């Protein structure tokens, strides 16, 4: 961590993080919170695998199992994968485009706290009468019938954290459009920036349908509305549509930034510019666009009719084309390169075959009549863990190693990193490869147990062993982080030696104002260009040193989010006749939120300036 943080007392550091609007610190917050939820989701995954290790197991009960799978899916997707990606976006994207800051530092922090409080709220359901138990998809007839408050926790918690995600998305969009350094044209943006941009656009359009769907769910469950109650004219299929109109783009929200990270990693460690850069950009946009046209492939067996099924089947298959373009471009990037197999690169090399295997099973599922067999079977579980774990989680682990020196000015241990990879990678294939066959052999998903006479015992057992190997991998990664934090040495600038993009050109530890002078971008892979031309500083500057405008820290984002968190409890328990305290709590929570918002809008917050003279004296940057 930065040297200034070390000098501060513990309390001051905490306060600093609670009020920070610095994207680099928010990145750290996202990283910590995301890791916490990833471990929780991972433990839930282990419970699933232990329960299914043998037939007729009673390690967990039927009802509890449903809560576990629901929370596993929900936690992993909303609270682990997305925030971890946000961590790396916050850490790298503003630096990649040569920006001093994000467009809306205050909102950036608000987005984080909303996500965190939403996630906490959702997870508190475990201790407050039961977690949601209708699957992460929460299909309406079952979720309306669910007797505990679990689904209410789900709906309210996702609503809060979803608002945070939406805000984060808008922030990235504006940052990338408006804050690029001079010369950083769209077609010179690093791929991770591009994929962040497209993923943010997907967030913008995909989250409102989820928001509306969750409101319908809340209204139906808490206020006797009838959106999904077929006896009063409602229709459960509306929920399915809304969920998947959100849900399908969501998977691309996750995987596109992962693609972006690997694009950076392949180029860096092959010492070669990304092959087919413009077609990579095009493919990214095309995937984003097609992502909105295919949601009903999750609903082939709902009975939408052959015409709808046929259209959505063909549209879904089309996504294989731009994704294929990407895969081949990656291969051609490393082809003819000078490959250094560092830990991030090792993850990259593991990613290609794994993701392709997951992608092609997706295309099989896209064939509607075949999906009648595959749907809701373990084949699906295998497919999506191949793309998610083989795509996103590998990307996250790769990025953790790759960007660790950027975020903390330390290198994770490479040897341990490679051992981690081996355990995780072997475990991953061992867990999920075999699940394809379980599915084909007739095993439905979301079953808490199975009878012993169906030929599924051995494969399930193997799958569980794999999960344990993965767990060892994850624990090793945590160990690596701890060891590094204790005795790591400063990594310095451009620690991988082969950095190509602007984030590696900045001195370490990164000054809190980022670039002392805004860089001038002279082409794609601008740092590489400067290095090749023998520029020791790694940057050409677009302006002389002058005053830098900075935003003030603020505790208001925390308070706004905390207010909603409190209000959510009030709203949730308001349904129970015996909880008279709920209404005051609801009002108090909303009051906290609104008051904080009013303070924010009435008090002028103009930030402050770092003066030229101070900048001259600081070390780092131009000396």
């Amino acid at each position, binding site marked *: 961590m930065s040297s200034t943080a070390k000098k501060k007392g513990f309390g001051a550091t905490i306060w600093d993080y609670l009020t920070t609007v610095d994207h680099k610190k928010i990145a750290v917050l996202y990283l910590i919170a995301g890791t916490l939820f990833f471990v929780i989701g991972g433990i839930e995954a282990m419970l699933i695998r232990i329960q299914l290790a043998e037939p007729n197991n009673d390690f967990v009960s039927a009802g509890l199992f449903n809560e576990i799978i629901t929370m596993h899916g929900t936690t992993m997707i909303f609270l682990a994968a997305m925030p971890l990606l946000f961590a790396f976006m916050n850490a790298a994207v503003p630096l990649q485009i040569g920006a001093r800051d994000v*467009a809306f530092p205050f909102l950036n922090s608000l987005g984080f706290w909303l996500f965190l409080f939403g996630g906490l709220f959702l997870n508190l359901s475990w201790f407050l009468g039961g977690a949601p138990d209708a699957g992460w998809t929460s299909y309406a007839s079952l979720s309306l019938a669910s007797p505990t408050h679990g689904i209410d926790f789900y709906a309210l918690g996702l609503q809060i954290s979803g608002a945070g995600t939406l805000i984060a998305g*808008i*922030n990235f969009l504006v940052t990338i459009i408006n804050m690029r350094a001079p010369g950083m044209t769209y077609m010179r943006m690093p791929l991770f920036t591009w994929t962040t941009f497209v993923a943010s656009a997907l967030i913008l359009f995909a989250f*409102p349908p989820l928001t509306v769907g969750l409101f319908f769910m809340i209204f139906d469950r808490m206020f006797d509305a009838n959106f999904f109650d077929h006896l009063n004219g409602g229709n459960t299929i509306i929920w399915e549509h809304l969920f998947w109109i959100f849900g399908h783009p969501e998977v691309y929200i996750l995987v596109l930034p992962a693609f972006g990270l690997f694009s950076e990693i392949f180029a860096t460690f092959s010492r070669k510019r990304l092959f087919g850069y413009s077609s990579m950009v095009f493919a990214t946009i095309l995937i984003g666009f097609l992502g909105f046209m295919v949601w009903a492939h999750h609903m082939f067996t709902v009975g939408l009719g052959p015409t709808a099924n046929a259209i959505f089947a063909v549209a879904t298959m089309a996504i294989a084309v731009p994704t294929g373009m990407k895969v081949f471009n990656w291969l051609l990037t490393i082809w003819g390169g000078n490959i250094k197999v560092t830990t991030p690169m090792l993850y990259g090399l593991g990613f290609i075959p794994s993701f392709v295997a997951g992608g092609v099973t997706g295309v099989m599922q896209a064939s509607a009549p075949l999906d009648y067999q595959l749907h809701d079977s373990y084949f699906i579980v295998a497919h999506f863990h191949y793309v998610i774990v083989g795509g996103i989680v590998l990307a996250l682990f790769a990025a953790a190693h790759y960007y660790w020196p950027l975020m903390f000015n330390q290198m994770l241990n490479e040897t341990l990193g490679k051992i981690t990879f081996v355990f995780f990678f072997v475990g991953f294939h061992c867990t999920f490869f075999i699940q394809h066959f379980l599915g084909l052999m007739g095993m439905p998903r979301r079953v808490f147990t199975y009878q012993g006479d169906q030929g599924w015992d051995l494969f399930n057992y193997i799958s569980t062993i794999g999960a344990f190997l993965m767990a060892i991998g994850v624990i090793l990664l945590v160990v690596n982080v701890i060891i590094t934090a204790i005795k790591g040495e400063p990594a310095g600038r451009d620690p991988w030696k082969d950095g190509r993009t602007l984030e590696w050109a900045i001195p370490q530890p990164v000054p809190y104002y980022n670039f002392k002078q805004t860089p001038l971008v002279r082409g794609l892979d601008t740092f590489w260009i400067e290095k090749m031309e023998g520029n020791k500083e790694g940057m050409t500057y677009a302006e002389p040193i002058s005053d830098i405008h900075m935003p003030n820290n603020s505790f208001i984002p925390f308070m706004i989010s905390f207010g909603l968190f409190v209000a959510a409890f009030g709203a949730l328990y308001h349904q129970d006749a015996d909880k008279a305290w709920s209404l005051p709590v609801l009002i108090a929570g909303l009051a906290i939120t609104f008051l904080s918002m009013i303070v924010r809008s009435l008090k002028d917050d103009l930030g402050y300036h770092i003066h030229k003279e101070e900048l001259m004296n600081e070390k780092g940057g131009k000396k």
Partner: protein
Amino acid sequence: MDLKTKFTPQSWPAHPENATLEGKNKTLGFWIFLGGETVLFATLFATFLALKNKGPNGMEFSTQSLFELPLAFIMTMLLLTSSLTSVYAMYHMKNHNFKAMQAWIAVTVVLGLGFLGLEIYEFYHYVHLGFTFTQSAFGSSFYTLVGTHGLHVIIGLAWFILLMLRNSKRGLNLYNAPKYYLASLYWHFIDVVWVFIFTVVYLMGVLD
């Protein structure tokens, strides 16, 4: 940026909302946000279209039996006019005529309040007839769609009022100009949504 600079109409930039980086970011961010809002309303419209006139067996309520066009017409006129008055306000903002701007915003607010009053009256009337939020899927989707729009009207009004009060003593500067501009964009967006509501909900509801 500082709040002390005093502007004359002549030194006042032609596009005050975009004159600062903060202003640029805000305007763009707000447009993007409106893109999200568009999808949000589309979802509500889609649901309304799927659920309209659907209810328990033998439900007596339908779009035809409920809606009255004269009321919807008056509401539409109020909101449309308020859209124009907020354009006037922005016109005066660009001319750095603070008083005139505040005045036109006040007119906008009055018109908006009129709209809101009529909408409340309308809901009150339906509830009296027994057509409530919980009565049917039709009721749920109708009140959610039109009510969400109403909520936007309330937020828009609150925004305008807050801006007027907060800045009444300070006059225009480059810090609050983008805020006025965004509030007026928001108000136009509310009108855009209403155009579809009166067309799709009321007019087409009465049609078939």
